[in-house]
Structure formats: structure tokens, C-alpha cells
């Protein structure tokens, strides 16, 4: 089970309503994943600023945290159990060192903010104020836990590189071997989750210089198991299904957006869907879209 959704705007009207659309899509996939939900939204980028999505321990005082960091030009925005710390790019390393072992950093990027939590998808979306968010693209996940506990850490998306995030429907069978290889190459892991392995794998391939599309094509060679992936980067949005393609997937495209849903139900509420090109992505085929700016 599990449901995944994604929306990539090609028009300003869709960007303005991105969060509202994504929230509706997540809610429609509640039946496939009722126990937790998460999403990443790629918003506007302020030049010179990097955003750290934090999950401060319950009861933390955000203003006190900001004061303790003492980084000029930084600000913090609290959204339920998460907080987005915006700071000058040059101070990222300093902030991360100060936060290490005190406040978990769940996502880093110039555009991306990442939220995930236990609870019904519509409730989780509302808690973080997703319907009011805007952005160029976003991806989301509704989870029905089968292999590990219902926890915030086990929820998707997983982000393992700047502005990179991944949602996954399926399960990987060789994740232990791939994790060992990546550890030897120096990559770290926060969980024992198979999806995190896929995320780190993509981060590693892109770090070597592969494009998002080529990194996904490499998955077909190195990852074994069931998967439908939807991946976001600062400017890109991509979809890949494994060669057996057991996990369902539907894509829709209009001149205003590209939308992904585990089922068509997730797309049924989008504007202009009646005239959209709707198709089932082919197995073992990378579909990728890139923004020009």
C-alpha cells in the first residue's frame, strides 16, 4: 500500500495554489496510507539564503534556539512540530555544528521545506498549513506501515542531500548491501529504512555528477525490489517504476502542470484534469521534468 503524489507547476496559477492542490491529493490517498503523511514543497528562493527544516524536541522555544545560534540575518518559522530556520548560506556549517545532536535537521535546501508526521494525511497537511503554501513543485506520501513502526522518522519523504527528496511506494530487497557500499563511500544514514537507502543512493550518484534522470537510470541496475519513486530536486521532478511495475502509478500533464498519483483518484480534483493527457508510466522508464529557472 502507501500512496504517493506529486505536482510540478508550469504556470503561476498552479504555483500559487500548489499547497492547496497537494493537500487535496494527499487527503484522497488516505485510504492507501492512513497512519502518517509527509510532503516537501519547493518554494521561492531568496538569493544567499539556505533553509534548514528542523524537528525541535517537544517544548522547545524557537526564539531561544535562534538566540542561542546567534547568527546575524537568520530567522525561524515554527509550523507545528517542525520549524524552518533561514540563514545566510555561509553560516550553514556553523548552524549545523551547533544543532548537531540537539535538534534533528530533516531537510536542507535553498527552496525545499520538508514536513512529516504521524496522523491522518488531511490532518497532517492542515497541521503544517500546507493548503496555504505556494511553490514550484511538491511531493507527498501517505504511509501504511508494514515493515517498521509508525513513527515520524519512518514517514516519507526522505531527504539526504540539499534540495533532494524522495518518496517511495514499495520495498527494496537489497537495501542492506547497498547501504554497506554507500557507508564505505562515506555516506551516513539516520535510519534503517530501505527508502533512505534509495535516497542516499541518488544523492551519491548526483554528487558524482549524474543528472537526476541518469541517477534514476542507475537505480534500475543497482536497486532490487519493488518501487515507484517520485523525486524532487531544486529544479527537477522525476518518476521511476521498477521493471515489474507492481506498484501503481498515474501521470497527468497539461500545459499548466505535471501531476503524479498512485491512483487517478489523487488527480481527479485538479483543475483542467478532464482535458489532461493521463497515462500510466511505463516500467523501467525515467520520466523527468526540469525547470528552466
Amino acid at each position, binding site marked *: 500500500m502507501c500512496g504517493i503524489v506529486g505536482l510540478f507547476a508550469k504556470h503561476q496559477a498552479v504555483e500559487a495554489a500548489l499547497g492547496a492542490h497537494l493537500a487535496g491529493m494527499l487527503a484522497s490517498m488516505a485510504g492507501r496510507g492512513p497512519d502518517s503523511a509527509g510532503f516537501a514543497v519547493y518554494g521561492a528562493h531568496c538569493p544567499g539564503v539556505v533553509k534548514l527544516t528542523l524537528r525541535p524536541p517537544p517544548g522547545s522555544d524557537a526564539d531561544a534556539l535562534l538566540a542561542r545560534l546567534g547568527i546575524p540575518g537568520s530567522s525561524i518559522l515554527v509550523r507545528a512540530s517542525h520549524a524552518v530556520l533561514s540563514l545566510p548560506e555561509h553560516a550553514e556549517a556553523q548552524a549545523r555544528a551547533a544543532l548537531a545532536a540537539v535538534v534533528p535537521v530533516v531537510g536542507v535546501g535553498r527552496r525545499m521545506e520538508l514536513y512529516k508526521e504521524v496522523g491522518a494525511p488531511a490532518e497532517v497537511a492542515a497541521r503544517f498549513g500546507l493548503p496555504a503554501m505556494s511553490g514550484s513543485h511538491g511531493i507527498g506520501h501517505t504511509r501504511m506501515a508494514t515493515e517498521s513502526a509508525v513513527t515520524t522518522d519512518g514517514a516519507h519523504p526522505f531527504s539526504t542531500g540539499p534540495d533532494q527528496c524522495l518518496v517511495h511506494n514499495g520495498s527494496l530487497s537489497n537495501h542492506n548491501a547497498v547501504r554497506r557500499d554507500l557507508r564505505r563511500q562515506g555516506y551516513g544514514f539516520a535510519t534503517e529504512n530501505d527508502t533512505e537507502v534509495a535516497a542516499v543512493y541518488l544523492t551519491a550518484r548526483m554528487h558524482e555528477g549524474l543528472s537526476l534522470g541518469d541517477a534514476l537510470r542507475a537505480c534500475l541496475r543497482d536497486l532490487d525490489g519493488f518501487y515507484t519513486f517520485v523525486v524532487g530536486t531544486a529544479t527537477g521532478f522525476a518518476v521511476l517504476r521498477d521493471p515489474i*511495475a507492481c506498484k501503481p502509478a498515474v501521470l497527468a500533464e497539461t500545459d499548466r502542470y505535471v501531476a503524479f498519483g498512485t491512483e*487517478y483518484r489523487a488527480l*481527479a480534483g485538479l483543475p483542467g484534469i478532464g482535458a489532461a493527457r493521463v*497515462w*500510466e508510466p511505463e516500467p523501467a522508464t525515467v520520466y523527468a521534468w526540469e525547470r528552466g529557472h
Partner: protein
Amino acid sequence: MGAGTGDGVRLGARALTAAALIAATQAEPQVVDLDRVSVRDLNQALHALDRTSTTTRWRVLNPAGRHALAVGLDAAAEVEILGHAGYYCAGMNKSARVTVHGNAGTGVAENMMSGRVHVRGDASQSAGASAHGGLLLIDGNASARCGISPKGADIVVRGSVGHMSAFMAQAGTLVVLGNAGDGFGDSVYEAHLYVRGAVASLGTDCVETAMTEADRAELRDKLAAAGLTGEADVGEFRRYGSARTLYHFHIDNAAAYS
């Protein structure tokens, strides 16, 4: 197409009156708007139809990818679904004619017994799974495992079919006007498979067989039943079937598969 659009009848099993049934037998179809009526109420109303009655016409609005639309019908109803359907649409169909004016999700017409299911768009995985009879016609493409384990239905796909189609196909026919994906006809029993385009690869124990005059006649009949006479020339197809090395075929049992 949109006669009655937005005027969905407030329909529930409890509210289904004789008057509604009579209305449905008349020229104007009964309109059911799924933005206002639940799928369960739609299906219960269709199940309440008397199987001896004359054809009744139904038009379903705003399917929005909902699952299990028009399943388990057992009457000569004609159901038009205006939009994309979700999983298992027209499953277990008997006698009814169901048309999806859009795409259909996983398992359309699964376990169909008789009647006709027509998908005007594409069909997702496992179209016609395990179907015993009737005709499934897909105007677009069908994805993986089209016609998995059928037991007598006829499936006609005007586009192409995905990998592992006709897997363990026991009886009936699969006619593909386009191409077939990898592993076509894997572990096929005695279903008759006809493909006009290319087959990416054949599955275990599936082989191309000679096209006999009887095969040509059968294929001509299936195309005619699907309303495709003239769209495809019988001579362009190749015939595939079981090499009969994987299961214990015995000629004395041949009649069990026909």
C-alpha cells in the same frame, strides 16, 4: 453526452422506487452523479434490476477514479461511465454492457462471466483477469498482465499490451492490434493469442503456432464482435499458444478448454 449533467438523481437503495426503475427502461438514461450519490448506492440500484427485464440505461457522472463502479451486475443493463474509472470496474459482470468513456484502473472486468465491457481509453494492469466469458474491448493500451488467467473471455485491445500479458491464460482469446510486452503468454494453457504487432519476448512455454483456417475464422469473428471488421486484416496477425511442455496436457481433455 451531457444530457442531465448536474441533475443527478438522489438515488439510494431505499429511495429506488418503481417509478425510477420504469424511468430507467425508457429512452432517457437514468443519470447517477457520483459527486452526490455513493458508489454503494449506485451498485445496489444496479443489483436491484430484474434480470428478466428489458435493457435499462444508466449514465454515471463524475466517476473521478472511484473504485468498484458497476460491479457484480446481473441484468441486461447498459451503463455508461463518463470519465475515468478506478479499480475493478465492471468486475464479475454478467449480461450487462458497461462502457467507460475514459481510462480504467487495475482489474477492469475481472472475473467477467458474460456481457461486454468497453474501455474507450487505456486500461491499467490485469485487465480481464480471470474472466470466464463475455467481451472486453479496450480502445487504447492495456498495461501489464492484460488477460491474466482468463477462463473463457474474449479480450480485444486496439493498442498494445504490457509485460506478462496472457499469463497462465487458460481459455478464451486475446487479440492485440498493437504490440505485446515482455514475457507474453507465459505458462499459457489453451487460450488463443493473436498479435498484429511485435512481441517483445515470449514467456515460458509460449510459442508461435501456425495460423490455421479455423484460427483465421475465429479471429475474424472476434474482430467482428468487437466492431473492428475492416480496421485490421486477419492476415497481419500471428498466432501464439502453448507448447504444452509445462503442464500435463492430454489430448483427451482438449474439450475442457474450448
